[in-house]
């Protein structure tokens, strides 16, 4: 274990430290007392995470993550597979609750309200923080019913006309209206992959959330559908706060204002996207974006 850091800012003196994943952290320049570099805090924060640790059973997936998510901004979360970025994203609307043995420590707030306080209604939280998943998952219902699902369960529409309007508005904002307006009552599962993903986005924005979490929304799509979704993210960012997890660094560079780089469960660096991709502060970030690993 007498190894020295090949790169990075960590001190190799803490060579007795081992990550719970079994990796030798000191080798890649991570130390136990690692502090995220860059600008973790910003002025207009919609959501704040402070000292967040997430465990699956005995295994720690997220170590001491502190970051702000800016209002009406897109923050991209990048990093190698298994670095915990999806886990962290799911903790932002408590989707980890559905996973057995998942435990969260630390403090996450939306507009200053504690997400994990016993007083918080998780149903209401998820209506405020919507989510789009990696694989398009339209319900086996009609296109109309897919979009109307949220407004119906939250009682947002008083009349059928209201509901029709909401469905149309959501589909228009998701850029899907023109393609599906003649077949609203056909099955949503019959659409193409890219259309399905836009349907899922329409479904998510139909309840007018404040934040939209996107977990690799384009990884199952072809380049044209991906470009379409990226345009959509850009448009949506004027009204919504968006956190997007992606494996595609070009995508992160194209759609986001800020970028957070995760590595082995730790948040390494958060900075304006332009800086991360042109002049990263941390050597690990640099190694990742230049393709040395990942």
């Amino acid at each position, binding site marked *: 274990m007498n190894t020295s850091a090949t790169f990075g800012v960590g001190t190799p003196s803490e060579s007795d430290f081992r990550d719970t994943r079994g990796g030798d952290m000191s080798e890649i320049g991570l130390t136990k007392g690692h502090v995220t570099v860059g600008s973790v805090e910003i002025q207009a924060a919609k959501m704040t995470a402070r000292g967040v640790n997430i465990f699956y059973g005995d295994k720690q997936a997220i170590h001491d993550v502190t970051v702000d998510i800016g209002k009406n901004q897109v923050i991209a979360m990048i990093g190698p597979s298994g670095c915990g970025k999806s886990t962290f994203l799911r903790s932002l609307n408590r989707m980890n609750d*559905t996973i057995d043995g998942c435990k969260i420590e630390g403090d996450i707030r939306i507009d200053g309200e504690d997400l994990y306080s016993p007083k918080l209604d998780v149903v209401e939280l*998820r*209506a405020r923080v919507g989510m789009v998943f990696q694989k398009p998952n339209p*319900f*086996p219902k009609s296109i109309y019913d897919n979009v109307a699902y*949220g407004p119906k*369960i*939250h009682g947002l529409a008083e009349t059928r006309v209201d509901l029709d309007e909401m469905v149309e508005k959501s589909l228009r904002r998701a850029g899907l209206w023109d393609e599906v307006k003649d077949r609203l009552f056909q099955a949503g*599962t019959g659409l193409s992959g890219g259309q399905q993903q836009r349907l899922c986005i329409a479904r*998510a924005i139909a309840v007018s959330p404040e934040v939209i979490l996107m977990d690799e929304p384009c990884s199952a799509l072809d380049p044209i559908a991906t470009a379409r979704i990226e345009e959509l993210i850009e448009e949506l960012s004027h009204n919504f706060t968006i956190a997007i997890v992606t494996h595609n660094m070009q995508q992160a560079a194209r759609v986001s204002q800020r970028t957070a780089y995760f590595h082995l469960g730790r948040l390494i660096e958060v900075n304006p996207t332009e800086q991360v991709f042109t002049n990263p502060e941390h050597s690990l970030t640099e190694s990742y974006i230049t393709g040395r690993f990942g």
Partner: protein
Amino acid sequence: MHANNLLLLLLAFVAAAFYVGRGRANHIAKLAGGSRQLHSLPDYHGHYTALCCGLPAVLLLILWIIFSGHVISAMVLDSLPAGQFLGDPGGRELLANKIANIAQGVLPKANQPAILVAAAEELNRLTQISRWSVTALASCVSLVGLIWARSRITPELRSRPRVEASIRYALFFCACVAVFTTFGIIFSVLFESLQFFQSVPVVDFIFGLEWSPQTAIRDDQVGSSGSFGAVPLFVGTLLVSAVAMVVAVPIGLMSAIFLAEYAHKSVRAYAKPALEVLAGIPTVVYGFFAALTVAPFLRDLGQGYGFSVSSESALAAGLVMGVMIIPFISSLSDDVITAVPQSLRDGSLAMGATHSETVIRVVIPAALPGIVAGIMLAISRAIGETMIVVMASGLAANMTFNPLDSVTTVTVQIVTLLTGDQEFDSPKTLAAFALGLVLFLITLILNIIALKVVKRFREQYE
């Protein structure tokens, strides 16, 4: 030699043929420079030789088993003087039976006409000859097959595709056995039913409102006609099945939803097998539980509230049948509910739906085709169920929709029509086959619908 021994002998030949063929192939391979020079591996050549050795001989043996008895008895009968036949076509068969019985010593030879004893001895002699000749012939055929196949083994011989094809045919044959058995059952029931419909018109049977299958032995007896209107029976079947489904569908479905969606893993690990134990209880046990426990309890309960409940009520039989069917529905529904992708649940939960809203609005609709198919199968199970209703629902063919009354079902009537000593050509017994046919058609249609629905479900998710 007896056919079984002959079969053993052939088996030995086949085993030998495999080793001969494989050895030959190995030898040839060595000469040609390794087994890579062969088109097929030595094992395949072995199997090929074994097939050539065994198949023709076994086919021969099968043909012999089917035809030899008929041929020999025909030869014996033809050797008798013409006057021995009783004249009608059945007489010939009776005589053949009698001779066979004498030959096997079932009938003592002492008090039989000499001519029949002689015929019996002739029969024994011919049978003996035929056995030895088939032994010799089959052995020859298998040996010839073995030698022929062995001589054909060359590096170029394409044994692999042939063995592969033979496996396909063997599997096809097995599948055919199942299908032909089904057809055999259908036709046997169908022919008996046609015979029944010659004495009772189809329309009277299917639309008749009165069921009393007693036919007189003598013409002058009272109530000699008998009436075969099956409607009361089907109404009874429907009533009992309906009661059973009213019990089984909600309980089965709810327990499936609980197990699949709400139960903790450890609870599920015990609760699911416990529920499936219900499926393992013999129906006869359910039957006496219904007849001796549930039915009297319901009767007493009814008396307490001023209802007149028959001591053999459709309700008692239906309730117990429902309990029997619960594991069917819960197990099948649990499977389809668990098969609904987690991503759909996540999608719904992420919209801010509660767990119950997710289950009701997303999971159940997605699983519905599978659930419906399970219910359909359960209905056909309920309609065909016999033991419980025999013991608990009575024999009176009442035309009623009141579950507190005693009713009888199609299956119960089939049982009572066919148990005991019966003539097999009276409408009374033949009616059982007609009932069976209609019952079969109903369950068949339900199963087809269920399979169609299941297929649609699969297409949606795979």
